[in-house]
């Protein structure tokens, strides 16, 4: 026990450098987002008028606080474009998470019931796509889904359709891309809880007269809820802010909030509004982020 305590001191000192790094490059930048989101748009380089400058002392700071502008947030609330892209992000994220759960659960369940030796192989097979560039995986789908792509060629050859179907620039293509990219994130936490489950529980349920389906519903599923929660959060949070997948696969008539932010920043060069959108997106994500952080910490700490 005392050895442990002696060890803890230098271990804490080891954390100083990464601590400072994260404060400087993760925490402080949010302060800048907040600051810019409250400033006025200007045609300049950089394209905003700073609201306060920490070098000018306290009186200047107080004066600056007086003219903080919530115009950008007011704009977000008034302009339909922003509200719509907000809602769309939520709808897309919820729908995709549900689809992912429906597809991921049977796969994770199948993995958990494989013989021990094969489980490691299956796990490896699920992890590998996570390592492979997701931009490349989306591009692979564009190859297949395009007008004269493999899918349409196949459907035509099988006489299922008589003319090529438009797949690209549709919501179905986007959902396909999202499900494809995030599937490993859903399967792995589900598998982690399902594989730890004691098979004797199911046997007991069977001995007591439950049908396999009933046993699944009453025993397996409730016990796998922590995995369901972790998988859902791991998918939901990044999907809300997703940019590349909807940009490449969905049509351009309705945008997700990540696309709107990108558009404001790169095309309209309106940094304050882009920052306001980022703050708004972040506020939306705080509750799921806190939940996720708690789950993550519990998982890592229960491991020791």
């Amino acid at each position, binding site marked *: 026990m005392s*050895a442990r305590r002696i*060890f*803890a001191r230098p*271990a*804490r000192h*080891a*954390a100083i450098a*990464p*601590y400072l*790094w*994260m404060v400087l*490059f*993760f925490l402080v*930048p949010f302060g800048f*987002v907040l600051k*810019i989101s409250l400033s006025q748009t200007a045609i300049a380089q950089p394209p905003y008028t700073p609201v306060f400058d920490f070098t000018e002392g306290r009186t200047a700071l107080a004066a600056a606080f007086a003219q903080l502008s919530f115009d950008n947030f007011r704009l977000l609330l008034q302009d339909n474009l922003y509200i719509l892209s907000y809602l769309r992000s939520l709808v897309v994220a919820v729908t995709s998470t549900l689809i992912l759960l429906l597809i991921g659960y*049977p*796969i994770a369940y*199948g*993995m958990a*019931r494989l013989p021990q030796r094969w489980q490691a192989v299956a796990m490896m*097979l699920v992890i*590998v*796509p996570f*390592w*492979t*560039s*997701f*931009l*490349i*995986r*989306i*591009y*692979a789908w*564009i*190859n297949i889904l*395009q007008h004269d792509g*493999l899918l349409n*060629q196949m459907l035509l050859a099988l006489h299922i359709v008589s003319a090529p179907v438009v797949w690209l620039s549709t919501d179905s293509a986007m959902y396909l891309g999202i499900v*494809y990219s995030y*599937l490993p994130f859903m399967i792995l936490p589900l598998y982690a809880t399902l594989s730890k489950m004691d098979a004797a529980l199911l046997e007991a349920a069977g001995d007591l007269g439950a049908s396999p389906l009933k046993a699944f519903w009453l025993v397996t599923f409730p016990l796998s809820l922590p995995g369901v929660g972790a998988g859902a*959060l791991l998918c939901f*949070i990044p999907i809300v*802010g*997703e*940019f*590349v997948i909807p940009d*490449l696969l969905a049509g351009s008539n309705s945008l997700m909030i*990540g696309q709107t*932010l990108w558009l404001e*920043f790169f095309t309209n060069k309106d940094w304050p509004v*882009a920052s306001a959108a*980022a703050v708004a997106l972040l506020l939306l*994500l705080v509750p799921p*982020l806190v939940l*996720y952080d708690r789950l993550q910490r519990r*998982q*890592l700490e229960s*491991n*020791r």
Partner: protein
Amino acid sequence: MARTVTTLTRFNMTSLALGLAFLYLPIVILVIYSFNASRLVTVWGGWSLRWYHEFFNDRAMLEAAWMSLSVGAVSATLATLLGTLAAVGLARGERFRGRALFSGMLYSPLVMPEVISGLSLLLLFVALNAERGFWTVTIAHTTLTMCFVTVVVQSRLSALDRSLEEAAMDLGCDPVRAFLLVTLPLIVPAIVAGWMLAFTLSLDDVVIASFTTGPGSATLPIRIYSEVRLGVKPEINAICTLVIALIALIIVVASFASKLSNARGESAAPL
């Protein structure tokens, strides 16, 4: 120890097979078509290395590839260093002030939408008046990927038998020596896997790099992305196949490392 044999139903097998086919088929098709001789991406014109040849003569693409590889190598190295230190602090530091903030800062980038991380880092760099290019992208990638390294190394450290370190200290080692002589050799596989993961993540990123890079220094994903927006090009198929080959090589090394790492204790992080 009697382990009941779980039965694998036909439903289990089918869902597993379909799931894996869904994950792999698109990539396989992409790789096959990169060897297509035809300029039309969808018409098969026989096997050819033409598009690879094209890529190796495309100077702008090659420069972007070089930029990506160097950003990946430097940021992965920095991230491994910082992430390992952070993991040691979290797994062995017991309780300390600011621990909750520290772990929160390390876990949230794992799921934080990239548009937010990218935008916020850019605003920091603008405020600091930093010249945007290689170093800004490298710092941004280090910040993101060190969190993944932390998770990988921390789970390895937590699974480790602590009595080994304690025994070393009982035998007269000071904590630093005990760590360097006993703990470090045991977590090397996790550190290697962490570096590989950081490198591939950096090689993959479009969004954060787009925000934090400057004019004239595009990374490979940025170039691929802008080409892809214009449609499918056979040359891109070839580049993507090369990247996949590189990543496959990395996975083989990393899985070898994690096999060593799993020889003792279970790794919690499924990465």
